[in-house]
């Protein structure tokens, strides 16, 4: 099998298709895309799929396809069904909700369209889909769907018409930066790995150990369109000269693991992974490695240690993985979203990609919008959009009309941004300047009932439990910072404790070995910067302005 046409050819003996969704033999007039990502699935969207299929069949609609697709984005309103041809979205569809299903069938049979007009949904305004382009469109467990949607054209183009240098040049031109958090220029990283010499191979690793609490972008992408990530990895392998890839996925994402494994098998059968890809000499093999519950494994050197079967403790860099990674060989590590950006970059060109976004932060960014906002879910927006547009336009404002207090970005090493920064554009530089960072893309909106000291304590609790224990400042420093924050939230803290907290935070940030420890004090710094009065209220007045902390006061 060598070309896309071949791969699409039906009747391949070796190909064993997964259970078919109902797709009409003849012409397909409209389709009903039923979200089967984890969010909607947990609200029984699999039963919705079955129920809808039965009704469509009963109504004899032979030109309607009922399909399972990946994440449709608006997770808060699941289970979701989309009728893309008519631009209608049905939310909160329950498997036993006769009226909703009837309305769907009416819509599908050409009657009065039900549900919401998507064009009018503010949630979908401002969004630009590059990474998520195919997420709500293809069946995540059918490579044929992905191929129909133009999948693997980029890989074919890469290996048949481009040199590795040209691929890298395209990625450099796009201005794409690592979507895992640090924002390191992807093209530069690829160049380094490509230049590294190795007699016994190189590796491409996909970091899918999405550990930031409140972040589910990578999970959604893997559950919705795993092929796009594999395609990005294969292109990367071609560009840097690697034949083997690993995807390191959290054990907490069983559905993502299942779909990824099935995607790898199907890609192998279709000739897009394995030997002689697209009829060329290029070969690329991908294996899945499942994490075992350690946040620190998101750090690249810890991740490598874990893939090699050891304790996931980071090591000092240099040497960087690009020079000495898995088994001491040059290793390219990018995260899920970064790889998913690669096929569109190759297909449409770096120039096109670079036209989206801001000066130094090109392209789009996927965010998981969660917390006290009406429209929680998965969104993809161009870099440079303001926080206000995300929270109030896309997010629909705060639940129950409560007062906005902060947005937390960047996970446990990120920060809390206050109201006065709502008009700040979202890009790497602005976020860093504001004392937070992009992180992998978790965005948690907090209202007036959230205490910012308590939030800082929450993240410190997270870090002290997830510290690997290797380096002293992170291991013992996070525990002591937690103790001080706990003391303050109990109303027992003093101004002196606040000073100690600050100097300790400074020491932990400056002297820790890896990003986990270096970033651990960030929630403290950012809340001290923007919400110092809340700390002082706990200390001086023994009150929690948000009413969230239980103060037992008194002397030690």
């Amino acid at each position, binding site marked *: 099998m060598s070309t896309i046409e071949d791969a699409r050819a039906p009747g391949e003996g070796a190909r064993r298709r997964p259970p078919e969704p109902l797709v009409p033999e003849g012409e397909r007039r409209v389709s009903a895309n039923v979200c089967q990502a984890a969010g909607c699935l*947990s609200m029984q969207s699999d039963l919705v799929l079955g129920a809808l299929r039965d009704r469509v069949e009963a109504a004899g609609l032979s030109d309607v396809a009922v399909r399972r697709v990946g994440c449709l984005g608006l997770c*808060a309103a699941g289970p979701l069904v989309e009728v893309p041809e008519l631009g209608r979205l049905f939310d909160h569809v329950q498997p036993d909700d006769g009226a909703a299903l009837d309305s769907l069938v009416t819509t599908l049979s050409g009657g009065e369209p039900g549900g919401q007009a998507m064009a009018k949904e503010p949630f979908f305004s401002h969004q630009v889909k590059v990474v998520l382009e195919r997420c709500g469109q293809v069946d995540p467990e059918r490579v044929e769907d992905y191929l129909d949607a133009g999948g693997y054209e980029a890989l074919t183009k890469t290996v048949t018409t481009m040199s590795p240098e040209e691929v890298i040049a395209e990625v450099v031109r796009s201005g794409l930066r690592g979507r895992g958090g640090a924002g390191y220029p992807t093209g530069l990283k690829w160049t380094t790995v490509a230049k590294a010499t190795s007699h016994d191979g190189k590796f491409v690793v996909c970091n899918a150990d999405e550990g930031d*609490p409140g*972040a589910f972008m990578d999970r959604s992408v893997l559950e919705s369109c795993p092929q796009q990530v594999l395609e990005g990895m294969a292109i990367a392998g071609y560009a840097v000269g690697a034949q083997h890839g690993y995807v390191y996925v959290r054990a907490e994402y069983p559905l993502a693991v299942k779909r990824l494994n099935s995607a790898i098998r199907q890609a192998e059968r279709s000739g897009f992974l394995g030997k002689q890809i697209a009829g060329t000499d290029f070969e690329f093999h991908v294996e899945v490695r499942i994490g*075992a519950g350690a946040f620190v494994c998101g750090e690249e050197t810890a991740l490598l240690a874990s893939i090699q079967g*050891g*304790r996931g403790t980071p090591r000092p860099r240099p040497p960087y993985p690009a020079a000495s990674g898995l088994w001491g060989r040059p290793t390219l590590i990018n995260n899920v979203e970064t790889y998913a950006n690669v096929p569109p970059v190759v297909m449409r060109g770096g120039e096109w990609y670079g036209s989206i976004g801001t000066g130094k932060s090109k392209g789009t960014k996927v965010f998981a919008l969660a*917390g006290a906002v009406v429209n929680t879910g998965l969104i993809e927006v161009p870099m440079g959009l303001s926080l206000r547009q995300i929270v109030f336009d896309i997010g629909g404002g705060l639940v129950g009309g409560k007062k906005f207090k902060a947005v937390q970005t960047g996970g446990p090493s990120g920060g809390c941004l206050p109201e006065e920064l709502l008009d700040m554009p979202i890009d790497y530089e602005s976020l860093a300047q504001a004392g937070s960072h992009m992180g992998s893309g978790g965005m948690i909106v907090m209202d007036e009932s959230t205490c910012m000291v308590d*939030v800082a304590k929450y993240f410190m609790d997270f870090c002290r439990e997830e510290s690997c224990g290797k380096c002293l400042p992170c291991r013992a420093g996070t525990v002591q910072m937690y103790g001080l924050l706990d003391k303050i939230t109990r109303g027992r803290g003093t101004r002196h404790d606040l000073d100690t907290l600050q100097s300790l935070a400074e020491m932990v940030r400056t002297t820790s070995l890896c990003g986990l420890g270096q970033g651990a004090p960030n929630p403290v710094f950012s809340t001290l910067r923007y919400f110092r009065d809340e700390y002082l209220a706990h200390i001086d007045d023994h009150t929690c302005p948000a009413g969230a902390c239980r103060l037992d006061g008194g002397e030690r």
Partner: protein
Amino acid sequence: MVATPARTLSPPSDDKRWRQVEVRMRRLGHRPDGLIEVLHTVQELFGFLDDSALAFVSQSLSVPPSKVYGVATFYSHFMLKPQGEHTCVVCTGTACYINGAGALLAKLKERLGLEAGGTTADGKLSLLQARCLGACSMAPAVVVDGEVHGRVTPSSIAVLVEAL
């Protein structure tokens, strides 16, 4: 001491599941760096990792026992004790936390008389805590026996647990 060739080691018991473990190890070429993969397999099959399993894996993969133990205790996914018949996992991710996961967990701890990670004396239920299940749009989320329940309240969780 000369190491016994790993391939001829006999498993801790004649339980048939050990064959599956051996197959997994063979597929990984008995390489030391397959340790985590093999531990995953053992836990999937037996539910937890006991000393005899760790010793067997250590010898089969030629990994020092202290390293096997170090790895098995580093990752929160691995269990060194048998788990309860049922599991209840409370997500304590950020979105769940600010939506009251702390109160949920406290309620469960009090009701079951357990700390997170513990199992009831009758072996019926294990209470676990997770670092973000990615179900943030349904916060707070609880997973009971693999099934996700969203927007859980202290009273609804009581009903869920009671039903087990």
